[in-house]
């Protein structure tokens, strides 16, 4: 039953697609910017928004910081993500609907530094939370950790 619903949802997404590059069509926000130091951006499709407290982030958004900048984001499942300078983190997947048995969080760090503090998705289904890096993939077992990518 859940499969069928997911399938219909995917179909609906495909049919309504074609304009997904616009931030306003990126669906519901999955979190918000809470802290900013220096210059940082939330890039969603073609929209490149300077980050400020309250700036929404979406599935598909890329968080980006300039030199000596920083950025902190809280996701709707209480996951906390914060970046140091010259960093880039893509939010590839966020599913937080326990009643529909739909849970998952995948983020991808391209470069820079990240602190990750896990939230409810990691508590409810730890194996569904991943941080991808250019080299390997990190599985999260209910915890906080730091990642540096410099290559």
């Amino acid at each position: 039953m859940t499969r069928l619903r997911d399938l219909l949802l995917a179909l609906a997404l495909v049919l309504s697609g074609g304009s997904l590059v616009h931030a306003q069509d990126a669906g519901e926000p999955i979190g918000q910017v809470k802290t900013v130091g220096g210059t940082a951006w939330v890039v969603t499709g073609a929209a490149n928004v300077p980050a400020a407290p309250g700036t929404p982030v979406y599935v598909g958004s890329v968080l980006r910081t300039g030199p000596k900048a920083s950025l902190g984001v809280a996701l709707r499942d209480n996951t906390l993500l914060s970046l140091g300078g010259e960093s880039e983190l893509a939010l590839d997947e966020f599913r937080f609907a326990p009643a529909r048995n739909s849970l998952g969080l995948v983020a991808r760090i391209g470069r820079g530094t990240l602190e990750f503090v896990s939230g409810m998705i990691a508590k409810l289904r730890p194996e569904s939370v991943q941080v991808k890096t250019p080299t390997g993939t990190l599985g999260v077992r209910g915890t906080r950790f730091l990642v540096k990518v410099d290559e």
Partner: protein
Amino acid sequence: MILRLRVPAGLATALLAVACAAPPPPPPAPPPPPAGPRSYVVLERNADGTTGAVVVQGPRGTTVIERAGQAATLDGAPLPGAFAMTPERVEREFGAAIAARPRAAEVFRLYFETGRAVLTPASERLVGDILAEIATRPGVDVSIIGHTDTEGDEAMNERLGLERARWVEALLRRRGLPATELTVTSHGERNLLVPTPDNASEARNRRVEVIVR
């Protein structure tokens, strides 16, 4: 390649005397930071004092780190024993990211009087705290999530949780909830506070959580 110089003993003593007479040399430059890997993960202690684990899967295998301060390269290679991070190095490399960490979400649990659409006195007292907490946070967003116990049908419980959450939303709006980013959802019986088997009546699971971020 190491050069070995044979110096006559007398000359050595003379050189030593000269060296002692000379002004003290400038302090040695601090050693360069340890080279170490450039891309890695470091496990931290959680706010509650516990430590979880991170599993690294990469082209060279799978590695698990389980102790605070323990680090691993991102290629999944087995742990080099010496690779532990000092607090100084963590601060140097990650100080900006750690300082940018948002405040942890504040979770308020509201309970109803049995069988009535009225909050318990303890929960009623939390309403003011919720509004005060919202006022302190820049770029605040709020979630209201309804939860049930496992008694009865799953789909029905999802609806019931949503009804409870909407009831709390209406209450907060009457009490002056500011216009803020707000989501109202239900987790039904799929996010229990107290784990129980199916079809268990458990008052602590019948709650609405208001989360302020």
